């Protein structure tokens, strides 16, 4: 059972790996940008 879980997790991570990484990088960039804009008053909430 343990072995199966390990294999499934690996498959989950490896499946569309580069799409996942690009999405993560983009998410971080967007978050930092919006957060920075909010702190400097560029975006008013």
């Amino acid at each position: 059972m343990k072995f199966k879980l390990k294999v499934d997790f690996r498959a989950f991570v490896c499946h569309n790996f580069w799409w996942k990484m690009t999405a993560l990088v983009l998410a971080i960039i967007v978050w930092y940008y919006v957060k920075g804009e909010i702190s400097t008053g560029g975006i008013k909430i």
Partner: protein
Amino acid sequence: MIQEFFKLLLMPFQDWRYLLEILILWMVIYRIFIFLKGTKAVYVLRGIIILLISFVISQWFGFYVLNWILTKLFAFFLILVAIVFQPELREGLVRLGKPHFFPLELKQEEIDQLIKEIVIALTRMAKKRIGALIAIKREISLNNFIDTGISLKADLSAELLENIFYPSSPLHDGGVIIEGTTVLCASALFPLTDNPNIERRLGMRHRAAVGISEASDAVVLIVSEENGAVSMAINGQLTRNLSAEDLLTILKGQLRREK
């Protein structure tokens, strides 16, 4: 300077909500990527990502002229995307609100019968190398394609399917559309995919199968005239060389009734 950089870098770890925000953003962006993967929109997506990264870099380093140009270009690009990819966007919104289960009021026995008849017909046609193209309607309407074919509205049977695709039959060209246990039409024209990842040696039948599976949520089955191989297209993805057992398993999974 370095201290400030690290302070900025560690900012998301100061509050669990920041990390959650990034996680949610990550999931949303990833879903958009997967939705666009394999379509021509992916090239536009690359352009948007490059523009976005250039925009953020120019903002951080204070390249104000570049930043102004990129801002205008980005707004123009978004409008262009909305116009060019209007059908894909509409389809995406339709899919977003649709559950993924067999929608018809069919009993489990009827679904089993439907699958059995289709598998029998495909196996026999594959043996005889008779080309076939069958789309099984699920949630999204196929009315546009039904109108291009010859209306049948006949009870589904393996014999009927074989008869339709028999090479000298007047209805053998084009595709068959099935809804529930009814063959709605034959000789229907399906749109050809322009997905560049589809092998060039695959014929029009396979391209049409992938095309209609991109335009709807239909399960599309193909028998190759050349080698009798059975393939299946779902959501623009083509699975080739399926055995009768594979077909049975996949169809049971795809056409299952909601519990």
